[in-house]
């Protein structure tokens, strides 16, 4: 007899499949958001790597609120040596 545990299992399976599909659909947008946040951090703190930057005080004003952006900036800098793999991963190419 199909007990509540089987039904639960099926329900969870369908829910997980749905979530996986949704995540797959959103993956590119997630990558895009990360890239935009990286650009935002680069624009604001570009002086550190020789880019033209906004007035220093603007960077100082926003710096305390930009923990997440700095993490992304750091991760992107670490991944930058293998951009091809990064792009393939993003586009789902095996």
């Amino acid at each position: 007899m199909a007990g509540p545990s089987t039904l639960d299992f099926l329900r969870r399976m369908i829910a997980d499949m749905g979530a996986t599909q949704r995540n797959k659909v959103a993956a590119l947008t997630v990558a895009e958001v990360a890239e935009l946040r990286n650009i935002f951090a680069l624009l604001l703190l570009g002086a550190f790597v020789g880019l033209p930057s906004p007035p220093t005080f603007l960077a100082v004003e926003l710096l305390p609120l930009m923990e997440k952006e700095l993490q992304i900036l750091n991760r992107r800098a670490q991944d930058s040596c293998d951009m091809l793999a990064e792009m393939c991963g993003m586009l789902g190419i095996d």
Partner: protein
Amino acid sequence: MNILFFTGKGGVGKSTLAAATAWQLSQKSRVLIVSLDPAHNLGDIFGVSLKKKTSFSKRLALEEIDLKKRTKAYLKREIGVLNETYKYLQVLNLDNYFSVLQYSPGIEEYALLSGIEEVIESDNEYDYVIFDTPPTGLTLRFLALPRVTITWIERLIQIRRTILEKCHTIHRICGPMSDQETLLNFEEEDDRVLQRLIALGRKYRNLDAVLQGNACRIVTVFNPDQLSLREAERLILALKDLNLPLRLLVDNKITDANLPTAERVENQLRKITDASLTRVRLSDGLSGGRSSKLYEIQEDMTSWFPTGAS
């Protein structure tokens, strides 16, 4: 409130003229004169020590903006926010690491601008606020700062809004249960960076509106000589670029001997601006230093800035 900026090359007499104008205007109106020059000499001109805002007479107040103090206060405030944000790291002595920031490019201009902003916002009790500015280079940089900052802020806000829109899309696709680490808040009110940017944008737009408004008048002082002419030309063109209101040119230190040169220099300047032009003769009384009478300048400067004009 009327706001006057006395600008010009170093040594042309802008501090003296600003002081004399302040004194003459204070005979009928309430006047605050503020020195923005890092090498202050407003106190020397009036023969008083200016550690803080001081009343020189019933209607005249003097102030020298202490850039070092202002920079330190600003950095202290920012370090306070850093400490608050990174409390869990138990960051100690951050100010030692961040103290070097005071030498960063742009910090001095920021300190000047925040000084001007504070004076304009807080001092409603005066009819005239007169700013004696530092030499041209620094003056132009801090006068340009609101415009430059607004441009940057608008661009950054645009990027931030795009990020939030995309986060909203992700939220709608993945639902509220998503625990993806990269997800941001998608509501504008929840994004502290955007809120800070919007607040800063508002602040600089207000300041820019004051600087470009009818209440603000920029006076350029020059002498009848080539060096001073060249710098005045650069200043006038830069003010035009920044859309700032140059209202008066003052040809200072005129003598009988340099009158032909003065006319030549004035004609050159008239070609690039239609601002009014006036002359101030070299006053012998000023050469005696502190004991001399600043107020012996013969020209009636109050006529340049009619009371109640706004």
